[in-house]
C-alpha cells in the first residue's frame, strides 16, 4: 500500500527539512498530489520546494473558532484572554499541523517536516483525543446532574448545545488527525546527522517513535557520512540521500527507499488459558528501561524519558495486570480476570 503520509524527523541540523523537501518533490514529479507541512518556521522544507508543485498543508485554512471557549472562561470568572495567550505558547505549531492534517484531502500524500520535534508530534497526536474527551462531559447535562445548584444559578448563561457540538467537532478532528498520522499508512523517515552524538540522538528519537507506534521505516543519511557501518537501528535500512551541490535532495520516485509497506505494528489480544495477553510492537526498548503502570483504564509506558498513555481495550478493563514480558521487540502484558469476572 502506498504511504498516505511520510513523517520526516531528525535531530537539529541533521537534514530533515532537506530530506522532506526531496521526498515531496519526487512524489509530486511522479504525478501525485502532495501537501507539505513543516514545524520549522525558519528554513523549513517549505523553503526548499516550489509551491507550484507541492501545496502547503493548512495554508488558508480557517482558524478554529474560540469564541465559545472565551465565553466559558468568562463565565468561570477567568480572563478570556487566557485562551488567546494559550494559542501563542510554544507547541502551537504542533497543534496547527494536526488541525490541518485532520482536514487534509483524503487522496493527497502528506509530507511532514517535523525535525527534532517528531516525537512531540506523534505524542500529541495520540494524547489530544484523550484530553478533549476528558472535557466533553463538561456540558449542561452533566452539570445539571452533578451540580444542580450551580446549573440553576448560572441558568442559560452556561454554554449550551452549541458549545457541546463545537467540543464534539474538535474531538472528531483530533481523532482524524491521530488516525491519519498513526493509522498504519504512515512511513517515518529518521534523518541522521554527521556529528559525534548523531547516533545517540537518532536512537533516542527512534525509541520515542517506537513507543508511539511510529517506528522508523528508513534511516536517511547524507552521502559520505562518516558514521560507522554498523546499522544505527536494527533491521531498519539506511538510505544515502542523493544530495546535490546546493544541498538539496533531487531524485525521482525510483530513487526513494521503499516506503510503501507499512511496518509491522502488531497489537493484538490473545487468550492464554484463563489469562489474556496484550501484545504490541516495541522495538529498540529493553525491559530494564521500560516502566509499565496501569492507571484506571489506561496503560502508561515510560522508557528513556519518553512517555505514552494507551487506552486499554474494553476486554481488559475488568482484568488485573499480572506482569509483562518484553522480548524480541514485542511487549506482552498479561492480564488476569478478576474473581468477580471469572464467576460470570
Amino acid at each position: 500500500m502506498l504511504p498516505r503520509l511520510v513523517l520526516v524527523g531528525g535531530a537539529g541540523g541533521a537534514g530533515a527539512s532537506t530530506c522532506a523537501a526531496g521526498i515531496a518533490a519526487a512524489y509530486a514529479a511522479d504525478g501525485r498530489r502532495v501537501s507539505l507541512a513543516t514545524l520549522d518556521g525558519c528554513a523549513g522544507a517549505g523553503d526548499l520546494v516550489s509551491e507550484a508543485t507541492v501545496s502547503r498543508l493548512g495554508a488558508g485554512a480557517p482558524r478554529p473558532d474560540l469564541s465559545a471557549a472565551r465565553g466559558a472562561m468568562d463565565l468561570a470568572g477567568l480572563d478570556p484572554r487566557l485562551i488567546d495567550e494559550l494559542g501563542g505558547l510554544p507547541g502551537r505549531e504542533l497543534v496547527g499541523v494536526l488541525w490541518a492534517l485532520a482536514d487534509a484531502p483524503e487522496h493527497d500524500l502528506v509530507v511532514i517536516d517535523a525535525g527534532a520535534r517528531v516525537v512531540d508530534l506523534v505524542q500529541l497526536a495520540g494524547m489530544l483525543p484523550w484530553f478533549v474527551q476528558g472535557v466533553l462531559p463538561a456540558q449542561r447535562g452533566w452539570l445539571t446532574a452533578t451540580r444542580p445548584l450551580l446549573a440553576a444559578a448560572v441558568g442559560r448563561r452556561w454554554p449550551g448545545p452549541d458549545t457541546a457540538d463545537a467540543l464534539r467537532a474538535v474531538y472528531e478532528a483530533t481523532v482524524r488527525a491521530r488516525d491519519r498520522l498513526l493509522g498504519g499508512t504512515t512511513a517515518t523517515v529518521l534523518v541522521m546527522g554527521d556529528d559525534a552524538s548523531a547516533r545517540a540522538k537518532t536512537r533516542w528519537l527512534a525509541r520515542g517513535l517506537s513507543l508511539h507506534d511510529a517506528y522508523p521505516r528508513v534511516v536517511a543519511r547524507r552521502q559520505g557520512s562518516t558514521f560507522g557501518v554498523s546499522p544505527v537501528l536494527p533491521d531498519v535500512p539506511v538510505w544515502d540521500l542523493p544530495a546535490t551541490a546546493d544541498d538539496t535532495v533531487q531524485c525521482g520516485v525510483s530513487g526513494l527507499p521503499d516506503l510503501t509497506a507499512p511496518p509491522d505494528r502488531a497489537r493484538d489480544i490473545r487468550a492464554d488459558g484463563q489469562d489474556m495477553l496484550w501484545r504490541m510492537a516495541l522495538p529498540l526498548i529493553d525491559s530494564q528501561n521500560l516502566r509499565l503502570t496501569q492507571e484506571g483504564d489506561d496503560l502508561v509506558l515510560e522508557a528513556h524519558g519518553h512517555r505514552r498513555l494507551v487506552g486499554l481495550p474494553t476486554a481488559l478493563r475488568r482484568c488485573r495486570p499480572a506482569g509483562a514480558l518484553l522480548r524480541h521487540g514485542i511487549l506482552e502484558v498479561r492480564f488476569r480476570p478478576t474473581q468477580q469476572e471469572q464467576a460470570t
Partner: protein
Amino acid sequence: MTSGTDGTDGTDPGGAVAQEALRLAEAVSDWARSTHPNPGDARPDAETSRDTDPPSAERTAGRSCGCHESGAVDSVCRVCPICRVATVVQAIQPEALERVADVLAMFAGSLNAVAEDRRAGARNPTPSSPAKPEHTDIPVSGDTDDEGGAP
C-alpha cells in the same frame, strides 16, 4: 446531631453534609428575603399576592431552573430547593452575591478541612475516591539488550 447522621458510626456522612447544605441554603434564602423584599417569595403564605401579580420569583425561577421545561407544576417549583436557591441567586445584587460567594467558599473550605481531618483520624481510612484512577505498577521482564530489533 446524633451519631447516626454525622457519619461517626460508619454511615455515609454525605447525607449529613447534604442536609447541612440544604439548611445553609434555607438560611441564605431567609437572609435574602429579609434583606431584599422584592425578590419572589416562594412560601405558601405569599399565595395571595401571587394571584394578582406574578412575582418575580416564579419568573426568575422559570428562567433559571429546568422545572418548567420538564412539565413540572409551579407548586413543585416552589418547594424545590434548587429553584428556591436559584430564585434568590437571580434576585440578589451582584455585590451582595460576591459576598455570599466568599462566605460559601470559606464554608466549603472549612468543610473540606474538617473532612480531611476526620479522614486522617479515622481508624479505618476510607478507600480512595472512585474518581481517582487505580495505580498499579506492572513488573517487566525480558530482554536487557535493546538490539532485539524490530519484530
